[in-house]
């Protein structure tokens, strides 16, 4: 019996997902130990987003299961999965546009999310947390503006702030730096590195420069399966990895960046 310490926090076991005749994931297994940072790369259509969808319960696996802290979660409704401490940042900025930046953070920071307990106003601790995160994300001056009026980069930062506010055990980041400048990308990489340890983080990204900055173990997906695992330098030297990228010229440009 493995001890609590070595048991992976996220344990994807032989998951297959098919959309009609198309197999997005084929018998895929992936383990991430608690407190680790893991990067997931792979060409378009490799199944990266589908894997995240499966982890958060948006997509049900046709076979196999997803375990979180030893518990099978692949049959729970999405809000229950989120309640266990899994938080996903989507590719497109997913802020709540009708609410202010501060309200976004306050809702994310709430512990009790039931329909009756929601009537409780935010606690001082939650308010402090929201203000800290506004500061951290540089949005203090924009706190009272509806999120819809924020710039694209500000929305990305706000969403990262929301993810941090929720203080999840497992953090799933889907292309967190899409649309960011080089400097913002570097800041985001630094932020993610400080979060690892306290949180377990799984990052998807195309941007090899960003992946390099994260300095973490990389898993390469290809055609719905784990193709290689290792550090980025080793993978870059691997001709088979280069080949699956070079087969798709648009991705190859990223890979060489």
């Amino acid at each position: 019996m493995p001890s609590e310490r070595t048991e992976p926090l996220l344990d994807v076991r032989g998951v297959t997902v098919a959309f009609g005749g198309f197999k997005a994931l084929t018998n895929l297994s992936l383990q991430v130990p608690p407190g680790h940072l893991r990067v997931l790369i792979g060409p378009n259509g490799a199944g990266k987003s589908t894997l995240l969808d499966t982890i958060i319960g948006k997509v049900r696996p046709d076979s196999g299961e997803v375990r979180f802290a030893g518990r099978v979660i692949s049959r729970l409704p999405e809000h229950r999965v989120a309640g266990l401490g899994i938080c996903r940042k989507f590719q497109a900025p997913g802020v709540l546009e009708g609410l202010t930046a501060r309200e976004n953070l306050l809702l994310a920071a709430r512990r009790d999310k039931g329909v009756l307990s929601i009537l409780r106003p935010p606690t001082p601790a939650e308010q402090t947390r929201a203000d800290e995160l506004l500061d951290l994300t540089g949005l203090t001056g924009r706190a009272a503006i509806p999120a819809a009026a924020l710039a694209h980069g500000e929305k990305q930062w706000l969403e990262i702030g929301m993810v941090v506010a929720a203080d999840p055990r497992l953090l799933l980041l889907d292309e967190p730096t899409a649309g960011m400048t080089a400097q913002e990308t570097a800041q985001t990489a630094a932020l993610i590195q400080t979060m690892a340890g306290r949180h377990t983080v799984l990052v998807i990204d195309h941007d090899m420069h960003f992946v390099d900055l994260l300095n973490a173990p990389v898993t390469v997906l290809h055609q719905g399966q784990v193709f290689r695992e290792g550090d980025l330098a080793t993978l870059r030297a691997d001709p088979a990895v280069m080949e699956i990228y070079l087969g798709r010229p648009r991705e190859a440009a990223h890979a060489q960046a």
Partner: protein
Amino acid sequence: MKPSPGALVTLALLLILAFAPLYLGAYPLTLLGRVLALSVAAVGVTVVWGRAGILSLGQGLFFGLGGYALAMHLKLTATPPGDLPDFMVYNGVERLPWFWAPFASAPLTLLAVLTLPAAAAGLVAWLMFRRRITGVYVSIITQALLLAFVTWLNGAQGLTSGTNGITDFQTFLGIDLRSPGTTRGLYWVTLAAVALALGGTAALLRTPFGQVLTAIRDNENRTRFLGFNPAAFKIAAFMLGGLLAGVSGALYTLHLGTISPAMIGTAFSLELVVWVALGGRASLLGSAAGLVLGQLAKDRVSSAAPDAWLYVMGALFVLVVLVLPQGVAGLLARRPRAPQPPLQPAAPSPVPREVSDAL
């Protein structure tokens, strides 16, 4: 907390309306009382549609449940003890139907007015939102349920008095409904209900509950992945809409002294939505005022040119959709606001989206 400008305007309007019996004649006062009763339902539509983004075209169902619940009591009170209501005798019904029996009691009736429409709304909402039915399908389902209810009311003559509706009321809680003093008292009771509906709803929407409803309207999936269960919140909002519609229906029945299927049908439910849209569906005061002014205009236009009314209403609705998506309240506010959802949010197509995400 510092009162908002909207709250101050509401308070001022309610004060002016409170003294209406002193400066209005008998007919205008009766008319005003009626439309104020309807505006309670409009407040419900603001929560359900303006906040939660659920376009229900069947609010007449809950309005009707509240109205009929009270009407059944009034009918039984107006019937000599031991006798059956007159329409049952005409239709050859020999025993009081089981579901009429509880309405002999005034406290049970009041309880039913407050719980029955909300419970029915909760059930309808649970069936829809648990299955993640959204957008135009919700509008179709609510409309269809309303039609089924109206058809049953029309058909079950012996039980509901059919198309004639229930009428000939005399007293309520021992008060003679036909005396002039009652008209004034009923007006104030109605105004109090409007004030309570506006104040209570505004207070509720100011809690994080209101924020979650906005969040669900703008991005239901994102809200779900933050750990909130959108279905539960939508059911709660829909129940509140049902409660307010039911209270509105009961008050309206008292004002008119009758309730019939024609009063609660499709035309009524659509009109309710049109007035709310015109007033401003995101604003409580705006939608209540939109309804009051719209109904008063209806009274004028339809007495002058009965055939023109539907065209006027249709034209107003088109105008609102094209020119004033925030209604008159949005025009007056003119503050930077978050974009509002389209009138009929596009139906979701989960599978293609997942496939496109995956590719």
